[in-house]
């Protein structure tokens, strides 16, 4: 589609092949096959419990899988230890609950990993952090603690924290679901800006507007399976499966 059209045979940024995952008896990911080329924005939709979060968390191995392969930028996921930490450093993740470090100021949240993991100097990391906070529009909140910020500001800080590692790809797991309605837009705008700058993104969300506006591709999941994989236009105007039609019917009538 977009960046994959280049002449170099670059590997996809994310590749999942034959991935299965169980929680005890519960089969939560069923034979997942998906490739996300560099620069593409993929929105993952699906009803609650369909395995969207698990898919997202499997990519940086916050959830280990039972079988199949996952590759990031052409390299298979390491099992544990330093190599896994190294891979995670290249994969940014944004959570529904923000998960900012509550005992550290916003700027310290952003500089922590660049200093501890990338071994940047404090001054260098701080300079980059301030630029990122400025980019997400909260530079004036840098010295505050997370609890002193609104939800929307906290989530933008969390995005800046992930970007500070200069990740190759960003994963978002329902980044706006815990926000008051009036703060949803500021976070979506930040994400749309990232998408426009060419970041590879996998976004689990219920925000159909964002899917239409920023996504190159929509993946629809149900019961642990990928049921549809198409362009936003195709998906919203002519969904193929009954489960997708049913899902869209429920979402769009709200």
């Amino acid at each position, binding site marked *: 589609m977009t960046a994959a059209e280049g002449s170099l045979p670059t590997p996809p940024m994310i590749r999942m092949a034959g991935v299965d995952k169980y929680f005890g008896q519960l089969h939560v990911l069923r034979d997942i096959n998906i490739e996300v080329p560099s620069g593409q924005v993929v929105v993952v939709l699906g009803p609650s419990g369909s395995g969207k979060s698990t898919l997202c968390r499997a990519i*940086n191995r*916050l959830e280990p899988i039972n079988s199949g392969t996952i590759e990031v930028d052409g390299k298979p996921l390491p099992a544990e*230890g*330093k190599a896994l*930490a*190294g*891979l*995670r*450093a*290249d*994969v*940014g*993740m944004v*959570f529904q*609950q923000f*998960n*900012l*470090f*509550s*005992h*550290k100021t916003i700027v310290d949240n952003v500089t*922590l*990993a660049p200093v*501890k*993991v990338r071994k940047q100097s404090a001054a260098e990391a701080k300079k980059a952090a301030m630029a990122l906070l400025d980019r997400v529009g909260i530079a004036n909140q840098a010295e505050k*603690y997370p*609890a002193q910020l609104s939800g929307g500001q906290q989530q933008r800080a*969390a995005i800046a*924290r*992930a970007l500070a*590692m200069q990740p190759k790809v960003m994963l978002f797991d329902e980044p706006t679901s815990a926000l008051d309605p009036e703060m949803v837009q500021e976070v979506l705008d930040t994400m749309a800006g990232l998408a426009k700058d060419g970041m590879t993104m996998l976004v689990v969300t219920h925000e159909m507007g964002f899917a239409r506006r920023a996504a190159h591709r929509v993946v629809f999941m149900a019961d642990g399976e990928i049921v549809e994989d198409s362009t936003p236009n195709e998906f919203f105007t002519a969904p193929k499966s009954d489960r997708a039609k049913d899902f869209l019917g429920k979402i769009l009538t709200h």
Partner: protein
Amino acid sequence: MDVLFDNLDVFANGFYTTIQLFVVSGIGSLILGTALAMLRVSPVPVFRSAGTLYVTIVRNTPLTLVFLFFAFAYPRLDMVDLSFFMTACVALTVYTSAFICEVVRSGINTVPVGQAEAARALGLGFGQVLGTIVLPQAFRSVLPPMMSMLIALLKNTTIAAGFSVAEAGQIRSILSERGENQLLTLIFVAVGFILLVMILTSVQRTLEKRWSVAR
């Protein structure tokens, strides 16, 4: 007052030793207790069992027995020779760390797992996640019970008097040989401990004030 001023050297030496015992075994207990708590939350089952075993045994043993072990049984093992002072420090540390471990562990449980997950997702290793995200917040949330443990440790140092360490608990017996009034002596010793505890509680208040901003 004469009891105090005539024997100032005895009081000063006694409390100086008490403070030394407290500082050495306090630092030792915080380090060992935290290490034990890390064992008890580790993903490795053997480590968890080892931590649990230690806490179960030591926490259920009277402190005097721990002292007796290190004073009389330990030397028979022919390991490193310990002075009376170091023997007391080891006994106090071994005992107190079991309690500190449980306090730290309850603090670890108050830190939202999402924060540890976010730290792992950024590429921090297990030790970095514990050291920079989990433990600092765990300590903040258990400051009051932690201080209670340290105050108990301060008072427990008086058991060392029974094991040839001339700390504040021994002041009474020294002064009774000099024929001083025992009641007055004990009152002055008690006042000394109250002053030391007040220092600890003011440290607690200062830390509480500083850390409350971050919430």
